[in-house]
């Protein structure tokens, strides 16, 4: 007995030692060697190596413990939460009044927030809500229709540039440009969809990634028309019935515009998802051949998915341009697309609540963790890896819609399950 325990402990220790050795080896070039270019000497920072070794040793223990816990909780199909927590939560999630109260409180909170926080924080909230809109738009393409799309920032740019150019050359106001930005982005999305109709998965991702870069490079090299890399400045802020607003007031005004847009997006996207069109999009994600055999026009539905998804990026772009009053191509790099995709994947593909939480996680958290800004990318990467291992379907996975059918016969067949859901 004692011998067996000792063996297990030795085995675990050996594993951790190997892991820490491996990590020390991997990080050796970047963490240990440092070339001092002034003195032409090499610094050997052995303490760093020791620290990494210790950290890897401890973390590998923790990692294996967490993995064991995960496997153990997967078998009985219930989480390791205490009984009371599980039961209460299930009750709250099913209980409509609770959901409505919670939603009402959140709505109220968002309405009064800009009056009680500083302009700086309002700005952060504006960018949070912009990402919510962007994420929800991408969610239609990636989450609902299942098309891996890596060029969302391009349509964000198209929206922003439509407003900037329309106001610079044609003197269009914000309120005319807002719908036009959305429409132009949607048309661009449909135009992109035509050549990629036959592509799926990785291949589609590569093409859309390329498209994103093309748009950025076009904007950068279009010369004086788009202002090139210098971008366009002095974009007018939105007008409020011709009244003159101070910068702080405009900020609050823009906050409300984005907030309204986010609300409209949430309602529109959830309505779309739960409709004939939405079901067709989901069918496309599940099985293209079966989808066609069931009478769904594959081409039409794909074009629709792209158009519906990119339109929201266009709206968000117009508001972004109006908020910053200055745009240039470097705001719309691939990194931006990656962030939006991360929001969708982290939050939960196809789930609206998930996207909102994902946006909060990826936009708000970095702002409040400014103190750790040097390690932001490390934290970000760690969070992603942990999520992929422990919650592969996202923070709030999408739940399929459950229908209520009133059928008197159903109770006779199966008493336990047929309770209305």
């Amino acid at each position: 007995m004692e011998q067996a325990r000792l063996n297990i402990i030795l085995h675990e220790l050996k594993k951790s030692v190997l892991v820490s050795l491996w990590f020390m080896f991997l990080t050796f070039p970047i963490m240990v060697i440092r070339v001092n270019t002034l003195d032409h000497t090499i610094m050997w920072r052995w303490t760093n190596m020791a620290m990494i070794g210790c950290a890897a040793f401890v973390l590998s223990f923790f990692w294996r413990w967490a993995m064991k816990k995960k496997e153990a909780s997967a078998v009985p199909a219930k989480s390791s939460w205490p009984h009371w927590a599980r039961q209460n939560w299930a009750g709250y999630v099913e209980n409509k009044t609770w959901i409505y109260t919670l939603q009402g409180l959140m709505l109220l909170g968002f309405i009064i927030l800009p009056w009680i926080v500083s302009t700086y924080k309002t700005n952060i909230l504006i960018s949070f809500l912009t990402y919510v809109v962007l994420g929800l738009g991408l969610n239609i393409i990636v989450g609902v229709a299942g098309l891996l799309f890596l060029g969302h920032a391009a349509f964000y740019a198209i929206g922003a540039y439509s407003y900037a150019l329309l106001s610079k050359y044609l003197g269009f106001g914000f309120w005319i440009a807002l719908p036009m930005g959305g429409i132009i982005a949607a048309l661009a999305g449909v135009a992109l969809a035509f050549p990629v109709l036959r592509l799926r998965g990785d291949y589609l991702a590569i093409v859309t990634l390329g498209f994103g870069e093309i748009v950025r490079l076009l904007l950068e090299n279009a010369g004086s028309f788009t202002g090139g890399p210098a971008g366009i400045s002095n974009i007018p802020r939105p007008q409020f019935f011709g009244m003159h607003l101070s910068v702080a007031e405009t900020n609050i005004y823009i906050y409300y515009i984005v907030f309204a847009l986010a609300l409209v997006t949430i309602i529109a996207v959830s309505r779309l998802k739960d409709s004939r069109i939405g079901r067709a999009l989901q069918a496309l994600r599940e099985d293209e051949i079966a989808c066609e055999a069931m009478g769904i026009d594959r081409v039409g539905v794909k074009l629709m998915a792209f158009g519906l998804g990119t339109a929201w990026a266009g709206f968000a772009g117009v508001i972004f341009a109006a908020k910053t009053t200055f745009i240039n191509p470097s705001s719309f790099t691939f990194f931006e697309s990656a962030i939006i995709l991360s929001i969708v994947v982290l939050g939960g593909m196809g789930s609206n609540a998930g996207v909102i939480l994902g946006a909060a996680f990826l936009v708000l958290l970095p702002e409040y963790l400014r103190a750790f800004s040097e390690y932001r990318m490390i934290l970000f990467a760690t969070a992603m890896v942990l999520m992929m291992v422990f919650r592969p379907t996202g923070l709030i996975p999408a739940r399929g819609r459950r229908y209520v059918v009133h059928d008197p016969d159903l109770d006779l067949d199966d008493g336990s399950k047929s309770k209305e859901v």
Partner: protein
Amino acid sequence: MEPVLNVSAVSMNFGGLRALNDVQMHVCAGEIAALIGPNGAGKTTFFNCITSIYEPSEGEVWFTPKAGVRTKLNGMKPNLVTAMGMARTFQNIRLFKNMSVLENVMIARHCRTKAGILGALFRPLTVRQEEKEIVERSYALLKYIGLHKWYNEQACNLPYGAQRKLEIARALATEPTLLLLDEPAAGMNPQETTELKQLVLRIRDEMDMAILLIEHDMSMVMSLAERIYVMEYGCLIAEGTPAEVSSNPQVIKAYLGEEVHA
């Protein structure tokens, strides 16, 4: 009376491979016909050709829907073929796995309903009415097939036999004139096969439909089909009633092989 489906001299080439060779076939209204043959004979390719998933290299496919005009299907998009009134199931089950049983059937109502993007966003009365009708009709179909107690279950969680039945329910939801079943009894136990046989008969009688099925279960084919086509290496080698076909020497040869005289 004009046949529902009329296939004349259809051939299908994949590069140098001739998967179908001059296939002639017709299915009459209200008839149960079967297509049998050894593995790799080209039965599923034939289904793919008539449902326009493939475009036949040669030959013509003509289809006469209920209360409709005779139409040539060559080169038509598969979704339009379905809309015209031809629905199919798949040999290797192709359900929408992560959606509920009811939603699987609801999707198949797509070609019989109209709501567009604006309808989805603003939900006028007509759209809400249509949506309600979709749910009701889909549920009624599930009940007809006998899957209604699972209606909110995810399709991939159903037992195998039920998944096959759900494919049939989904095909029926498109209101077909001709139902194509690709090995509906594959992997079912004898009891499930008997049930399926009764279901197919019930569908034909009550829904007034022509049915063409591919099947390997000989007892099922012999007792169900009114006419049987036998295919081997892409060619039709026999056609006739079950009795005729089962006594045809060529068919016996194709299925059992030939004695080798040394």
